[in-house]
């Protein structure tokens, strides 16, 4: 049986392989450059030895030529690989990013339930470059290993004792490095804790900035935010201390090995076993053979790449909301729910609900929080799919409609709309082509009672969205204006006026009545006025429709009236 982590690791590896295949031309350039370099670099000390010996023996001239050619080859190969490495990484990062971004958008609303936005962003901006580095990390590690082994073999060819000396010295080096990593990670943990504490205090203070500004307690707050600096300093110095330790060990290791190699080789020179040139070559091969200690970095990178790939594979494995292929015939906008059931985390949110939202009319959804109102609202425009049952718009199942037909037909306004776009006007026209005109957007803003405050913004409709200070009520009115400008045969208002004061809400409701005349409307209502204005109220209770009747008829029922009783505290929550 497949355990989830094993499956994740395997799908991560599969993703890395696909990435390698996608960036094959670039990876090939890097591979060739590194292989040529490896061969040249391994021949270089031998060529140097021969050249030196030839010079010392008084027959110079052509002896230096192989060495100089090899030198030129390494310079060229390394220059190419210096470019090919980041180029290969950039290419596979871009293709992974593209895939991840597209799939995340295809996941839609269910996706944002499985992964939060910060998590998804993190996977896109850090996991993609991490796993994008995999092809070059594999190639670098391989060629590094080849060079190290080649260096050792070359040492053995010069004098077997040289290889023995090196093989004995290496374990000491690795132990020192491992010790370092452990110590540093402990101090680094302390350091990150202190940093996080400082950031938390700063965010706290920024949340209360109006109070601080009004009270003039700015200097006091700076000191409060900076209290973790002492911990930071202590942890920082501990990190330097452990770096000092490892520096001491490693700065002795390499020279000690080199000196030993030179000594052994020197004896060889004395006894005629080795030439002076070979002594120089031995020093060079020692460096090459020890190179794998440095390539621990690319192994580490490979580990990170696998972890990154696993995080990306997790998102890619989540099922997307696939669009259908049927067009939407002309129609009045009748929405029919047939036996619709939604189960989430083991809880049944909607239980075999069947309901017709009559064309051109307004249906209000009323019920306690958790009764399934917003779930139903999300189903109506296929933001999510039901676990079983069907929804039909003018007779066509939503799942069979092409996205380009469905989206223009259904408009949404939410309690907390996320506004996107460069300017306020752009935010009102936020949709794929064809977009509503600027004039339609302004008319929609007037209907949503948003025109007044938009014109008070710096720059009015051209005010950058990031520079527009907005209350919850103002954002809601922009969200409603966006829905009006978007238009469609079905409009879903999910608690879209909850932050407005009652007076403004009434005016918005009246304007909506005019602006959306003829559209079918599905309204999640918390206030009796909203329910009263609807043609029909569907009273949801525990995932089922408890009653379907006009507000006036339902109002006789005290249980229905109790739904609208003010909360004991936090009236605006």
């Amino acid at each position, binding site marked *: 049986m497949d355990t989830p982590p094993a499956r994740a690791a395997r799908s991560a590896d599969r993703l890395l392989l696909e990435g390698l295949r996608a960036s094959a031309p670039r990876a090939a350039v890097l591979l060739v450059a590194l292989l040529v370099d490896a061969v040249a670099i391994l021949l270089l000390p031998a060529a*140097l030895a021969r050249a030196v010996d030839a010079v010392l023996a008084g027959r110079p001239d052509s002896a*230096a030529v192989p*060495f100089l050619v090899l030198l030129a080859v390494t310079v060229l190969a390394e*220059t*190419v690989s*210096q*470019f090919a490495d980041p*180029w290969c990484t950039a290419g596979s990062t*871009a293709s992974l990013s593209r895939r991840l971004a597209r799939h*995340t958008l295809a996941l*839609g609303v269910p996706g944002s339930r499985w992964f939060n*936005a910060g998590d998804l*962003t993190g996977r896109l*901006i850090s996991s993609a470059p991490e796993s994008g580095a995999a092809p070059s990390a594999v190639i670098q590690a391989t060629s590094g290993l080849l060079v190290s082994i080649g260096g050792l073999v070359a040492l053995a060819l010069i004098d077997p004792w040289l290889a023995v000396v090196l093989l004995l010295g290496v374990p000491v080096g690795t132990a020192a490095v491992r010790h370092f990593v452990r110590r540093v990670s402990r101090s680094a943990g302390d350091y990150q804790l202190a940093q996080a504490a400082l*950031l938390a205090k*700063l965010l*706290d203070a*920024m*949340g209360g*900035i*109006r*109070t601080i500004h*009004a009270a*003039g*307690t*700015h200097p006091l707050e*700076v000191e*409060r935010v900076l209290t973790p600096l002492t911990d930071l*300093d202590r942890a920082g110095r501990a990190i330097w201390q452990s770096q000092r330790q490892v*520096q001491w060990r490693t*700065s002795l290791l390499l020279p*000690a090995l080199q000196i030993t190699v030179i000594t052994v080789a020197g*004896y060889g020179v004395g006894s005629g076993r080795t030439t*002076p040139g070979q002594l120089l070559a031995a*020093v060079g091969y020692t460096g090459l053979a020890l190179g794998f200690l440095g390539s621990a970095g690319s192994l580490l990178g490979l580990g990170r790449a696998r972890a990154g790939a696993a995080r990306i594979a997790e998102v890619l494995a989540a099922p997307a909301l696939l669009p259908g292929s049927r067009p939407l015939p002309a129609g009045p906008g009748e929405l029919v729910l047939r036996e619709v059931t939604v189960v989430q985390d083991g809880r049944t949110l909607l239980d075999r609900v069947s*309901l017709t939202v009559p064309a051109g009319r*307004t249906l209000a959804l009323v019920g306690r929080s958790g009764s399934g109102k917003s779930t139903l609202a999300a189903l109506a*425009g296929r933001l999510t799919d039901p676990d079983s049952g069907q929804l039909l718009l003018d007779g066509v199942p939503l799942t069979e409609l092409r996205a380009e037909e469905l*989206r*223009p037909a259904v408009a*949404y306004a939410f309690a907390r709309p*996320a*506004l996107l776009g460069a300017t306020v006007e752009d935010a009102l026209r*936020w*949709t794929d082509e064809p977009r509503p005109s600027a004039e339609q957007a302004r008319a929609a803003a007037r209907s949503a009672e948003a025109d007044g405050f938009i*014109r008070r*913004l*710096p720059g*009015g409709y051209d005010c950058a969205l990031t520079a527009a200070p907005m209350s919850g*009520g103002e954002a809601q009115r922009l969200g409603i204006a966006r829905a009006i400008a978007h238009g469609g045969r079905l409009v879903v208002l999910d608690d879209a006026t909850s932050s407005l004061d009652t007076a403004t809400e009434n005016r918005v409701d009246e304007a909506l009545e005019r602006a959306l005349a003829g559209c079918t409307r599905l309204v999640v209502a918390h206030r*009796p006025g909203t329910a*009263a204005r609807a043609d029909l109220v569907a009273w949801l209770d525990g995932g089922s*429709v408890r009653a*379907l009747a006009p*507000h*006036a008829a339902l109002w006789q029922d005290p249980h229905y009236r109790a739904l*609208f009783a*003010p909360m004991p*505290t*936090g009236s605006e929550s």
Partner: protein
Amino acid sequence: MTAWTGAEALPAALSGRLIAQALDAGFLSGHPLRGLAWLLAFGAVTVVGAVASRQVYPQLADVVEPLRDALTRRVVDATLRRSALDPAPPDTAALSRLTRQIETVRDSVAGQLLIVRQFAVTAVFVLIGAASLGTALLPLIGIPLAVALLVFTLTLPPLARRQRALLRAEEDFARLAADTFGALRDVVACGAVRRSDAALEAAIEVQHRARTRLAALGTVRRLAVALGVHLPVALILLDAPHLVRGGLSAGDVVGALSYLTVSLEPALRTLVQGLGASGLRLTVALDRLAEASAPPPTPAAPPAGTAGTGEPVGSAEPAGSGLTLERVSFAYHPQAEPVLADLSLSVADGEHLAVVGPSGIGKSTLANLLAGLTSPGAGTIRLGGAPLAALPAERLHAARVLIPQEAYVFAGTLRANLGYLRPDAGSAALERTADLLGLDGLLRRLGGLDAEIDGGRLSAGERQLVALARAYLSRAGLVVLDEATCHLDPAAEARVEEAFHRRPGTLVVIAHRISSAQRADRVLLMDTPAPVLGTHHELLAHSAGYRRLVGHWSTPPGLPPQALPTGPRGAVG
């Protein structure tokens, strides 16, 4: 530090020389023991060098840790100052990027100090060492090295530009991804998937291009090493017959080559890689930090004769806490519609004024103006007869207190939080105030004034009570509550407002519920086309807008007055 630096460079300075001696005087002339002795001397020198390099770390920590502290202080200070002027919500992602940039500066400065120092020392001592073997070697090594350094230095500015372009591309991409993924529901609901996908794709492409351009210029690093080290090696080899004729021994030639390949090459490689990567990261991070910690723009001085009062700042002293507004106007932007136009108003010392009006009309702006946090575009606001603009900051902070809707509670004791505006208040005064405002329950639950609290763990209502108690305790004559009770239930709100009503001084309440207006001496209704002032009863009698507001705020929910439209009946399944 210099003495240790000299000692640290000894191995670099003597390596070639000692190897030359070991060969010439030892192994090559049949005295292996003498050769061994020379190598042991080399070993001893290496140990001295390693000991010396140990000393660098504490000194490095002394440079780098205080640097981090100073940068953090500047950034925190400037961030708080800026956010006081900017009403936009804090950008947490930007803040954590800022702390990462401080870390980048810390790491890179340390890295740069180590690398540049190491290289400079190595280069100088290698040149000296080589010159001691034979002065003819000096130009062969020195000239190519100088040219290599010059070429590399010249490419640093374009490298920095490309690095910056990449960083900008990454930041734009991260922001776009966070915005898009945070609004996934809205992207789908608005039918803007293709548009969002295209935007993300374009950002990925920009990033990819920036990475490739940077990689292309990065090859200069490898060429600099070729020029600085490998060219001299080639020159020495080609010139070797001439050098040997000029008096150099076999050992001297091997020694010179080992100076280049053993000492200079690693140092030069580290220099160009280090300056090329972490050096550029450093300049970019410093740029960002300089931007982030620049003093915030000082608001432009009000034009003479409008808001200017003629009195120099610092001369005024409020007498009492009555408020007068003389023809005050305010707009967020010269082109924007004014939030306030020509408002004149006076509030007597000790009076209790409530401000009501639909959301978005500018009530919080008025609160900011009354508290002197924002200056009016035209007109004068006086507190106790003194123009707010002429009050020095300390006097303004002492004379009035503003409590905003978002209560600021910091991690610390309850005592520190309550005594925020009056640090000298005794336990008795704190407890009395807590009783008075209804905070006694929280006090008991936490176990006294010295309990540690954390804003995140209190309810929204409790946080507001803490902020209100703080304002109550302050000695300020004017209290401005800007929806500061919105998370309290009506009874708790009444208790708080009663307490403030009895507190000596002037009280301005931006009302969240109509009951707040009923409790006030007078009510200011902010409404279009012009604000209206009067008692609750006067406004009820004369203002239709006020009656509408009161009606909507206070009538118990029930059937709306208008007739219900009759719709077709839906079918319950």
